[in-house]
């Protein structure tokens, strides 16, 4: 899941090599050795080489925008997860784990796994059979041009702005951790993404995402391993957390969610289950084109169905390299005098408390990783950033070309023309992202608003897509009105709480609710409004003939016959294993 605004604010305060040196203001966490620089240079050389190498295989629109629809389930699945594993996701959620404890794991388990299985088993056949190039493209087929244009514009704006925010945040991290110039970081990483996506299209983005996925694990896995060694193992870590922080429970997933005030996150289990586990999670994993595009690139329906299931295994494992370092930070990070180091919120950083929650992962990296390994860890963060940005830019290029340029500017043109537009849209996406990054740099206050954009669109879009896919009676007018009013209601709720913070108690249904609960309940309300409006307007307008819904709606679509395969290649078999693992993990850490 995308990092919430409350967890994503990136350190701009003073930092230093935490456990060895006193904390000088405006210092940096670490210095790279020539070996670290060599590790980073090899990575950049490899991703650029892949872009140049694949440029010949991206000559048609099918090749450029959908990678020729010939990816294996493994490649599509890893790319599917990798496009979501941005560097800010890694650092933001490690910071959230330090701040909220193991509750942050919900965003990786209930906030991802059920939705990924639903995408693979239930929704993918419709996306795949309709042969759409994009999620807005499906809306056009189901609800008509107006819904497509609304979804396309909102998605395109969201993509480039999010990309810009991530780019700026990553540059700030590089400045804090390594002392790098912000403009240098922005230009170096964004130009590399522009080159390899512009040349090789989605295929190049996917290839690099697989590479980046491996790198993220290779660079980050050592931190929790060494952290557990230092802490004396899992049980000793849990005991130390319990003794260091007696007033809060950091180590239970569900036990203390019956009351908003009983857990550090200030959430209630209804918000986690319905707001996160259903609306936000299903909205993101099943309708956000950034991730759906990766699965659409699979070479056949079975591969497309298997890809999210394969991805879900790895998604379940991500807390090991993200949440666990945050928990370990509660135990092992120390001041130079040997006392426990306390990380604080961004607005509380001072000489006495020089580090924020969001610095916990870099702090853990410099604690354990020496020359070479630190370069690999930094490369993992950069790879995470670039995979996220490549996902944004490649999805933007597709939506811009097929859902904005083609219907509104030039309806009929040779295939090569649309490929050229896609390449230029990639460059345009990167340039606008850089502009957005500098906009955020000079007006930091808008960062919260830009990040909230994500939550404005996905919940209403989920309402429109679910009703369109599973309710024959849903009409074009119903879908459009539901989508529009859902977005407007989400924006209104957001602005209401910003202007009057006491409104949070009404949005989240409790005076004890905290900002995280607001995100969950705002999504839930906007989804319910979107659904209600779609249903009411649909019942008041004339339905489409059933024959026109073939291939678009459950119940009137004949799904393609799939050749029988041995049970170990069947998507349902692996989905059951995922469900058992998912249930077991939740019970284990209850």
């Amino acid at each position, binding site marked *: 899941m995308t990092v919430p605004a409350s967890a994503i604010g990136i350190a701009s305060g003073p930092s230093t090599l935490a456990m060895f040196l006193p904390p000088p203001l405006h210092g940096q966490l670490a210095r790279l050795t020539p070996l670290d620089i060599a590790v980073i240079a*090899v990575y950049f050389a*490899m991703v650029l080489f892949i872009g140049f190498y*694949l440029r010949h295989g991206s000559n048609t629109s099918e090749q450029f925008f959908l990678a020729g629809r010939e990816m*294996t389930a493994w490649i599509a699945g890893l790319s599917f997860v990798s496009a979501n594993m941005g560097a800010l996701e890694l650092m933001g959620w490690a910071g959230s784990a330090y701040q909220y404890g193991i509750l942050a794991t919900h965003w990786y388990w209930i906030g991802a796994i059920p939705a990924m299985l639903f995408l693979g088993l239930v929704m993918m056949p419709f996306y795949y059979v309709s042969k759409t190039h994009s999620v807005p493209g499906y809306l056009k087929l189901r609800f008509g041009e107006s819904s497509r244009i609304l979804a396309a514009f909102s998605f395109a704006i969201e993509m480039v702005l999010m990309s810009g925010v991530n780019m700026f945040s990553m540059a700030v991290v590089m400045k804090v951790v390594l002392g790098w110039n912000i403009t240098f970081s922005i230009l170096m990483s964004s130009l590399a993404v522009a080159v390899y996506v512009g040349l090789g299209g989605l295929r190049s983005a996917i290839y690099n995402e*697989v590479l980046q996925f*491996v790198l993220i694990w290779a660079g980050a896995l050592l931190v929790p391993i060494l952290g557990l060694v230092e802490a004396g193992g899992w049980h000793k870590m849990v005991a130390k957390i319990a003794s260091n922080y007696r007033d809060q429970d950091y180590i239970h997933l569900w036990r203390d969610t019956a009351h908003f005030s009983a857990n550090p996150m200030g959430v209630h289990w209804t918000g986690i289950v319905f707001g996160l586990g259903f609306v936000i999670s299903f909205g993101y994993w099943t309708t956000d084109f950034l991730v759906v595009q990766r699965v659409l690139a699979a*070479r056949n329906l079975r591969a497309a169905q298997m890809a999210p299931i394969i991805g879900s295994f790895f998604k379940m494992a991500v807390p090991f390299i993200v949440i666990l370092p945050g928990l370990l930070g509660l135990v092992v990070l120390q001041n130079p005098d040997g006392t426990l180091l306390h990380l604080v919120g961004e607005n509380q950083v001072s000489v006495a408390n020089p580090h924020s929650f969001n610095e916990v992962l870099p702090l853990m990296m410099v604690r*354990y*990783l*020496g020359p070479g390994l630190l370069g690999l860890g930094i490369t993992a963060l950069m790879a995470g950033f670039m995979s996220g940005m490549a996902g944004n830019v490649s999805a933007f290029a597709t939506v811009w070309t097929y859902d904005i340029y083609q219907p509104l500017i030039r309806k009929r043109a040779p295939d090569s023309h649309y490929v050229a537009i896609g390449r230029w849209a990639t460059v345009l996406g990167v340039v606008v992202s850089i502009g957005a990054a500098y906009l955020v740099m000079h007006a930091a206050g808008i960062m919260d608003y830009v990040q909230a954009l994500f939550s404005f669109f996905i919940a209403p879009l989920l309402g429109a897509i679910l009703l369109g896919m599973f309710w024959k009676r849903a009409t074009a007018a119903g879908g459009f009105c539901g989508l529009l009013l859902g977005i407007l209601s989400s924006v209104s709720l957001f602005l209401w709480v910003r202007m009057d913070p006491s409104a949070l108690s009404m949005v989240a249904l409790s005076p004890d609710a905290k900002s995280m609960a607001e995100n969950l309940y705002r999504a839930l309300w906007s989804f319910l409004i979107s659904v209600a409006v779609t249903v009411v307007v649909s019942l008041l307008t004339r339905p489409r003939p059933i024959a026109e819904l073939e291939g678009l709606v459950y119940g009137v679509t004949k799904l393609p016959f799939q050749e029988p395969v041995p049970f170990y290649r069947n998507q349902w078999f692996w989905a059951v294993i995922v469900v058992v693992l998912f249930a077991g993990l939740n019970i284990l850490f209850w």
Partner: protein
Amino acid sequence: MRGLGIRREIPIWFFVGVLLTVYGALIGGHGVYGWVTHQRDAVVLAGLHAPMWWGGILLILGLIYCVKFFPGKPTLRQGATGKH
């Protein structure tokens, strides 16, 4: 890469193998040098010589992937994207 007029791409897994091999050699080499010369990096748990064994793991994995997915080597399913 080209055979019978059909362009066959290098599998992504080969690229993964090359990258892991190079990283394994660089990091593992540094770790072995530190172990032999008794030079410890200024990090916590330096005595575990993490660069040596972590680099070794990366190197072995990388070599396995390089050999298994070497371009042009017949695989069960020679798709454009390789097979895993």
